[in-house]
C-alpha cells in the first residue's frame, strides 16, 4: 500500500542556514504520527515544505504516491492535505461561521462561483454547522473571529483545517498556550476529527504525544534522529540524550 505521506531526502536552506537536512519519513494511511523536537529544530519548516508554503531546496514529498513538492499550497490542499498553523491564521474580520464556511466551500465543489447565493447552499450550511458543533463553537457562530478568546481561536484554527474533509491533516502545535482543561478538550477533538484519517502533529506536551500517536519521529537540527512507536522512542538512548531526558520518564 502506498504511504499517505512519503518524504524523501528533503532539504531546505535559508541562505547559508541549513534548516532541514535530509529528512526521510513515511506515514501510513490512517496513522497518527507525532513529530517532536526542541524549539528551532525545523518542525514548522517541515510542515511548510510539505504543505507547499516553502519550496524544498531538494528532495521530494509525495501524497498518496503523487508528487506534491513544487506544487502551490491550494493545489496540494485540493489533493487532500490540510494543515493548521502554530500561530493562529484565521479570517479575523469574518464571523466564526464564515471562517469555517471558507474551509468547507471548495470541498463541496463551489470553486469561485459568482452565480450562486451562498445562503442557499444548503449542504455547505449543514457541513459548516456540523463542524462548528463538533468543535464546540456553534454558539459562537456569529461572533467575529477577532473577538474570540485565545483558546477558541486555536480551536477555530483546527476547525478551518478539518472543514474541507482532507484525508491527511497536519497540525502544528494545536494545544500551544492552552490550559490543562482546554488541552484535554482539544485532544479529544483531534482524536475524533482524525478518526479514519492520517494525522501528523507537532506537539510539545509529551502526555498528549504518547497518548495520541501511533508512531513518533524526533527532529533535531533538521534531521530525524529516530522514528518508532512510543515505547521504542521512550527506550531510545539517543533520543533521551538529545532531547527527551526527564520528560519521557515523567510521561511514563
Amino acid at each position, binding site marked *: 500500500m502506498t504511504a499517505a505521506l512519503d518524504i524523501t531526502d528533503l532539504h531546505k536552506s535559508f541562505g547559508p542556514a541549513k534548516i532541514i537536512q535530509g529528512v526521510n519519513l513515511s506515514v501510513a494511511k490512517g496513522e497518527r504520527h507525532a513529530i517532536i523536537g526542541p524549539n528551532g529544530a525545523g518542525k514548522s519548516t517541515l510542515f511548510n515544505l510539505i504543505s507547499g508554503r516553502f519550496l524544498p531546496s531538494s528532495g521530494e514529498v509525495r501524497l498518496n504516491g503523487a508528487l506534491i513538492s513544487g506544487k502551490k499550497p491550494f493545489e496540494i490542499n485540493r489533493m487532500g492535505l490540510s*494543515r493548521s498553523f502554530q500561530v493562529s491564521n484565521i479570517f479575523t*474580520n469574518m464571523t466564526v461561521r464564515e471562517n469555517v464556511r471558507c474551509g468547507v*466551500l471548495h470541498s463541496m465543489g463551489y470553486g469561485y462561483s*459568482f452565480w450562486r*447565493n451562498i*445562503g442557499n447552499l444548503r449542504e455547505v450550511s449543514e457541513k459548516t*454547522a456540523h463542524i462548528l458543533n463538533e468543535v464546540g463553537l*456553534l454558539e459562537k457562530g456569529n461572533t467575529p473571529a477577532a473577538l474570540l478568546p485565545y483558546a477558541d481561536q486555536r480551536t477555530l484554527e483546527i476547525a478551518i483545517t478539518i472543514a474541507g474533509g482532507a484525508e491527511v491533516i497536519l497540525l502544528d502545535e494545536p494545544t500551544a498556550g492552552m490550559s490543562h482543561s482546554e488541552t484535554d478538550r482539544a485532544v479529544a477533538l483531534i482524536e475524533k476529527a482524525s478518526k479514519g484519517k492520517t494525522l501528523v502533529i507537532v506537539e510539545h506536551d509529551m502526555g498528549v504525544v504518547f497518548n495520541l500517536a501511533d508512531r513518533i519521529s524526533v527532529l533535531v537540527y533538521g534531521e530525524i534522529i529516530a522514528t518508532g512507536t512510543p515505547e521504542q522512542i521512550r527506550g531510545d538512548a539517543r533520543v533521551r540524550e538529545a532531547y527527551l531526558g526527564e520528560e519521557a520518564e515523567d510521561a511514563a
Partner: protein
Amino acid sequence: MTDMTATYAGLEPTRAEKFRQRTVPLILFALVLLVIPLFNPSRSMITLLNHMGITIVFALSYNMLLGRAGLLSFGHAVYMGLGGYFAVHVMNWVAEGTGFWGAVPIFSMPAFGFGAGALAGAIIGWPSCRRSGTPFAMISLGVAELVAAAGFMFDSLFGGEMGVSADRMAGPEFLGLSLGPVDEVYWFIAFWTFIGVLGTYAFTRTPLGKLSEATRDNAERVQFVGYNPQRVRYLVFIFAGAFAGMAGGMSAVQDEIFTPESLSLVPSGAILIATYVGGIRYFTGPIMGAIVMTYMGSNLSDYTVGWLLYLGLMFVGVVMFLPNGIAGIVYGTADTLRAGRLGEVWQSWLLRLAGLVLIAVSVITIIEVAFRWSDGYGEVFEPFGLSLATTNPLTWILGVLPLVLGVVLVLKAAKGESK
C-alpha cells in the same frame, strides 16, 4: 443529521430576518426612486440626481475592491471611462442605424459599458492582480497614467481634448422613453442605479464575494483552504471593472459626451474619497458617500471657490477620526438609539457637536480670509454683515478662539465617552 438541521437553522438568519435586513431596504430604495419625481424636482435638481445615481454605481464598484477585497486602486476611473467611451461609440453606431445597431435602444448602453468595463478589467487586471497591497496600488496608478495618456494621444478613439459626443435620442425607443428631456433620463438612471445596487449587493452574497473578504483578511490562509488568492482578486477585479463600466454607460447617456479627462487620476481620486468618506466597511457606505460628495461637488462650488479645500479637509478628518465614515455615524447612532442609550450619551454628543461647529467657524474664517488675501484683489470676506479684513482684530479672534474652544470641547466629549 436530523438534530443538526435544527442547530443549523438557529445559526442562519431566519426567513423573516433575511426579509427585513435584505429585501426591505432594497424595496425602500426602489420606492424612493419611484417617489422622487412626484415632488416635481427642477431640471437642475434632476441632473444632480442623475449624477448621484451614476456616482452611486461607480462608488459601489470601487468598494468591491477597496472595502471588500482590500485592494487600494488609484485608477478606477479607467474602467468607468473605457466603459463610457465604448457606450458613446455604440451610441454613434446606433445613430448611423446600419444593420444590428439600428435595433439597439440607447436604454441598453449601461449593459455595453458593463461588458467593456469587464473586458478592460480582464486585460489590465491580469498583470496587476498578481500582487496586493502597495504593489497593487502602484500598478493601478501607473496604469491610470498610461491609459489617460493614451486617451489624449489616440484622437480617433478618444476624440482628443474635445472628447467624443453622442445623441441619446437616437435609435429605437424603449419603454416609451425618448430619453430627450432629463426627466425621462431620470427613469433610465433610476433603473440602472437599482440594477447596480442589486448587482453589487448580490455579489457580496456569492461564494466569490465571501472569498474576496477572506482574501482581504488573510490571503495566505485562503491558499490552504484550496483557493488561489490571485485568482480571487482577478475575478473580483473584473466585476469591479464591469460595474464601473456600467456607471460609464449611464454617464454616456446622461451627459452625451466622454473626454479623456474621465480616464485621469482626478476622477479616480474623487471616487476613492467619496467611497471612503461614505464608509468602506458597510455596503451602504459608498451610496451615502456618493450622494453627499456629488451634492457637495455641485453646490459647494456655488458658494466658495475654496470648496476643494473643504473637501480635502473633510477627507483628512474622516481618515483620522471616522474610519467608518458617514455610514459608521449613521449605524452607530441608530444602534445607540435602539439600545436606549441616548440618555447616557446625549451630553457628550452635544458637546462634540458644539465643538465641531466652533472648529468649523475658525477653519472657514481662516480659509475664506486667506484665499481672498492671496488673490490680491482687496476683496473682503463679509459673512453675516461682518467685515473680516486682515486688519480687523475680530478676524484674528474668530480664526483662533473658536478653534481652541472647539478642540477643548471635543476632547472633553471624548473623555466623557470613554468613561
